[in-house]
């Protein structure tokens, strides 16, 4: 919401992308800030089902589970990231929100050619992040796909149960970008 159109900036070093970095189980995922509508604290209303925020419904899934990854023993989902792209919306429970960061696009590497399947459309690239590697998720896949990697038949039908009250907009943490410039 607050980040749309403001996440890609051009600095002296070249084009950059603002990304929200999250962890879920063993994976570190980068989401384009333009595709992040906000963050919700994890409580009983957002743990499963559908969260409705400002009239927009977000089916909620655990990100690691949606990606078909095992949850580590230390993993503790703490936030819900609300994603949106091309009119599609989805929320993901994540373990940690590591922060909003600016990534120089020259640092983005393509997925190695050894990956030959559908996943080539899931990621826009990878980049070194801290002492590991972050995957830059394609927002159209993240928010728009009905089928997660770990949900052959789609995650929504199995988890619809509760709704976050629409009257709690104050619970939504919007992400603000400071010093970002809109690209031409």
């Amino acid at each position: 919401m607050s980040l749309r159109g403001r996440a890609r900036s051009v600095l002296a070093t070249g084009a950059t992308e603002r990304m929200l970095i999250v962890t879920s189980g063993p994976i570190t995922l980068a989401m384009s800030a333009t595709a992040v509508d906000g963050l919700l604290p994890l409580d009983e209303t957002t743990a499963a089902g559908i969260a409705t925020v400002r009239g927009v419904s977000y089916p909620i899934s655990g990100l690691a589970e949606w990606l078909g990854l095992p949850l580590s023993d230390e993993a503790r989902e703490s936030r819900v990231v609300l994603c949106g792209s091309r009119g599609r919306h989805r929320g993901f429970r994540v373990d940690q929100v590591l922060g909003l960061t600016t990534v120089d696009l020259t640092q983005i590497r393509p997925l190695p050619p050894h990956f030959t399947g559908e996943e080539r459309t899931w990621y826009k690239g990878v980049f070194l992040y801290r002492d590991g590697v972050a995957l830059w998720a394609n927002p159209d896949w993240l928010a728009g796909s009905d089928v997660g990697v770990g949900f052959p038949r789609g995650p929504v039908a199995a988890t619809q149960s509760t709704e976050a009250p629409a009257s709690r907009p104050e619970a939504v943490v919007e992400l603000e970008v400071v010093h970002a410039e809109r690209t031409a």
Partner: protein
Amino acid sequence: MLKGQRKPVGERAAAWPLLLFSIGGKRLAARATDVGGVRPWAGAVPVPSRTAFVNALTRHGEEVLPVFDLAGLLQVQVQGASPMCLIAKRQDGPMAICIDAAIPQLMTVEFAALYPPSQADPNVLWECRLDGQAVPIYALAELGIAPVQTCATGVSR
């Protein structure tokens, strides 16, 4: 890598330098020329994927390599507390394979000692016997890509 392999037997290299390694205690080999190096395993980051046996990345300094899950293909578990990383020089780029902690060995095998694999496996070039045990020689340059023509067809590899 494979240049010259279509030459008649007499013109082929008389000896094959091999790297012997193990995964899940199973002895395997690869042509030494198909191996880019061996180093300690630095761990892997899973990459949800639909590509069979390619579902992780490993980072070593600034280098990021895809991981081929040869242990998964063999349906075994890598053994040892400190596994090693074998860099396979696949034709589309290097990739990492997690192998047992046992230090790999270099050795040379006479070409005449090689024979077709006892079980059809598109990833295996030849087999040889070492210490009375059949050891498959994996085709790292094409591992997991496409079926390799078998010796039974009469086509040299």
